[in-house]
């Protein structure tokens, strides 16, 4: 299965469906080991934290060369700011993938759907591979698809909360209705939750806080890598349907098989 189950995104064929991040680490020096342990091939980095000055402790130097960089627009409050950050990222040599985060609510860090769609439209037109972070809303997802998004990144729960798939039903709808890949981003706190998202049919998961703030980030990265793989395998193998009650007989239709005159 590993040979054939690749995830095509932005012109790349990914064999890992776990995306990781660079935020919240006590030591960025852990990042290479986290990438290796998780098997991840895509890593997101906040452009606001990238410091290319000579002598600065630049997060970029910790990112292994084989990783696909997914710069994000953390800190953008409007589409205009997100667009400017994306252009800066490209000019700084971070490639043409961009994760759009437009957040103007610092209490819950919920994404602004309208501004996200606007930024997606502009950046997709400019040739970026646009991965917008969004609230799992079908209408916004359709608008993002029309605007040229390469994938949709719905939140499982607000960023950093580790609350899991609180938006499960909404994500399920996106998986069913959208032809674009669905990458569950934010809120995943445990490997079992990532596994659940993959079992549901999500194409990939992005996990940062739960790995970066674990007591053993490398061990947790490995656990997430395995959980995402297990969930994907389960999805491909076809999960059995779930019944609420044991079915020993057919109380409603059993009469069809009984001979007339029987009790």
């Amino acid at each position, binding site marked *: 299965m590993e040979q054939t189950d690749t995830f095509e995104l932005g012109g790349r064929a990914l064999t890992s469906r776990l995306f990781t991040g660079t935020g919240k680490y006590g*030591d960025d020096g852990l990042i290479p080991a986290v990438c290796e342990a998780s098997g991840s091939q895509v890593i997101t980095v906040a452009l606001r*934290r990238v410091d290319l000055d000579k002598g600065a402790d630049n997060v970029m130097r910790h990112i292994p060369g084989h990783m696909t960089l997914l710069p994000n627009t953390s800190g953008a409050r409007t589409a205009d700011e997100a667009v400017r950050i994306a252009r800066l990222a490209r000019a700084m040599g971070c490639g043409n993938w961009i994760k759009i985060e437009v957040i103007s*609510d*610092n209490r819950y860090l919920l994404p602004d759907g309208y501004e996200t769609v606007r930024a997606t439209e502009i950046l997709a037109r400019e040739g970026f591979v646009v991965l917008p972070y969004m609230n799992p809303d079908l209408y916004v997802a359709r608008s993002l698809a029309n605007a040229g998004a390469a994938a949709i990144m719905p939140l499982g729960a607000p960023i950093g*909360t580790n609350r899991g798939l609180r938006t499960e039903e909404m994500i399920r709808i996106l998986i069913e209705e959208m032809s674009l890949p669905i990458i569950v981003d934010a809120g995943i706190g445990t490997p079992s939750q990532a596994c659940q998202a993959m079992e549901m049919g999500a194409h990939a998961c992005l996990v940062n806080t739960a790995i970066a*703030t674990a007591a053993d980030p490398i061990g947790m990265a490995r656990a997430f890598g395995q959980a995402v793989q297990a969930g994907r395998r389960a999805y491909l193998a076809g999960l059995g349907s779930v019944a609420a009650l044991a079915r020993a007989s057919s109380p409603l239709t059993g009469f069809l098989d009984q001979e007339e005159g029987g009790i």
Partner: protein
Amino acid sequence: MTFLPEALHLATYPLEGSFQKVDGNEVLRAIGRDSLTAEGFLALLSPAASPHLEAMASRARDLTMRHFGRTVSLFTPLYLSNHCANHCRYCGFAARNTIPRTQLNLEEVRAEGEAIAATGLKQILLLTGEAPHKAGVDYLEACVAVLRPLFPSIAIEVFPMETEDYARLVRAGVDGLTVFQETYDPELYAQLHPAGPKRDFVFRLNTPQRGAEAGMRIVNIGALLGLSDWRREIFATGLHAAWLQRQYPGVDIAVSLPRMRPHAGDFEPACVVSDRDLVQAMTALRIFLPRLSVTISTRETPRFRDNILPLGVTRMSAGVSTAVGGHAKPAETGQFEISDGRSVAEVCQVLRARGYQPVFKDWEPLEASA
């Protein structure tokens, strides 16, 4: 709409009685809740919460880790001018104190900036007294133009301005505003500020709001702890921060917890805020407002700063001089004495040893990009 009605209501409300009425069960319930009301916040600040400090600290640590990770943002103040028309009774720069008055020219500003930049810092806080005819908006704008190439993030802690003036500075590249109310008690405020433009309690109270409206990304408020009952002041500070967060959700609201330090002049603090009190204040704020940025300055000792790191701190000053021109040449009289004189490199070393990443750069200026 302003915070004033709430502030005035708080000022006359018999909060002491409310603090005394809280029992331990209310405190435990507040610690366990996902989101806190003002009543829950009050419970955490009450004397009844004192025996539960470890549980509060544990919750505060978890919330801080979840929302900010193992990172602490570093900045340093750059004192531009100590001319001041105010008569704040507790401040070393007050007009009545006979200290040498000085103001950096742009060459000196550049030298200070370069000395700070050489330590690796990327975020600075520009400070002046209140003397707009000497160090006004034009002067600040010129200083920002000099410093901009060195620092992606520039905040100001100067004198309260009108929204249009803040907007001018935002356009010049300022992204943060720090303004302390000092005390939320209007009567005490009047006593402590007997003369000078700072006497205007209401204008100062509404200053963070004007900064937010002008487009500041970070607005940092605070009360000077020691001027009056700390529980009241922290309660008011927390409610003010919550009000600002709701009113301006796109702005990063930060709170500082400055304790009074020795300074030029003879003012004695009205109350002593112990280490234990400060930990209670900080952890209560964190539990009440999980995403609040919390700033701890070098007013605190190295030992205390190092130990409170996990309990809610997200921003720290380092390599500090509170004297005008103190980074590039030996310091003269500072605004107050600092307790943590460690260099930026020494602070970073301690942060790393404790598993924290010092964050130097946390914003990419956009004004110059296409």
